[in-house]
């Protein structure tokens, strides 16, 4: 799917030229917001992959908007790159502390901006893949555990079925206990799977692994 970059700058001219340059350099789709409130509105309604935001804007500072963004999106979910003048060193430090992933300085070098955008999009993608792999490992461990827990009572039940004293109460009781243990485990598995949708399809283009949603 085509990645979408949200450009936030009060200066229409700067926004428009930067947007066109990014489209030209890395072929990414850009959406523009003229202020912080419009930026937050767009983030609520559209899937955005990265935000490029001017630090100083009338009415509000980019750093304030950044804090609001971080209340909803982590640095992995939505990378934010701040755009600043070279003299705004304290603002840059403040923004990085508030959760900005990176910053670029004015005059914006379009090649540098394009490289930083692509790098942060890739980092976010790798982090998401890594999180999914961790989730998969947890599921694998869970399956192994429950496989073991089902196997034990199942072996007991099967062994009892072949015994000559099958009709004796003590044997029936053993079979009953084993089956109830299995039933209890399947209930626990159901409770877990209801919380988590597991989708069996190709995970990524290169690895053939189970994709976990």
């Amino acid at each position, binding site marked *: 799917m085509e990645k979408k970059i949200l450009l936030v700058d009060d200066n229409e001219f*700067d926004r428009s030229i930067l947007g*066109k340059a990014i489209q030209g350099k890395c072929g990414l789709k850009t959406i523009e917001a003229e202020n912080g409130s419009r930026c937050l509105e767009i983030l609520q309604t559209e899937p955005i992959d990265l935000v490029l935001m001017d630090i100083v804007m009338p009415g509000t500072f980019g750093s304030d908007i950044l804090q609001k963004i971080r209340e909803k999106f982590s640095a992995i979910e939505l990378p934010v790159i701040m755009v600043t003048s070279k003299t705004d060193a304290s603002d840059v430090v403040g923004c990085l502390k508030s959760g900005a992933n990176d910053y670029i300085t004015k005059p914006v070098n379009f090649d540098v901006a394009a490289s930083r955008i692509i790098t942060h999009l890739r980092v976010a993608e790798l982090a998401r893949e890594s999180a999914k792999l961790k989730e998969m490992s947890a599921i694998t461990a869970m399956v192994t555990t429950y496989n073991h827990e089902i196997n034990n009572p199942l072996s007991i039940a099967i062994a009892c079925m072949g015994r000559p004293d099958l009709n004796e109460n003590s044997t029936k009781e053993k079979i009953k206990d084993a089956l109830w243990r299995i039933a209890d485990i399947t209930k626990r598995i159901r409770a877990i799977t209801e919380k988590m949708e597991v989708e069996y399809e190709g995970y990524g283009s290169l690895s053939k692994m189970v994709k976990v949603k």
Partner: protein
Amino acid sequence: MSLELSELSFDRAAFLLNFQGMEDLAEEAISSFLGTLPKSMSLLQAAIEAGNASELELRAHSLRGSLSNYHAKQCCLIAWRLEQIGSSGSTSDAKMFFTTLSQEIDRLANDLRQLSENLKNQVM
């Protein structure tokens, strides 16, 4: 360096380098910028006349950001000075700097118009 180049109000080479391979966009950047300049300057002037220091700081900052795209060092320096005046909470002395900035901006606009014509001819 020739006299003509040293008198340029902006770093033409640095500006064009950034737009390498996108000359049509460079031409558009100049035209749009020239179109927005009168409004930017009048907002700056209005802030000075109203004695609104925070507005002066903001407008000067915004203009400096745009000017930096053209590597117009002299203009950026004066805009930065206006920004500093606004940041100090006053607008005194701002008129003098605004007048100097207006003169420099006129020079920049003329130089950019020339470059724009050259770029148009190249694109055609």
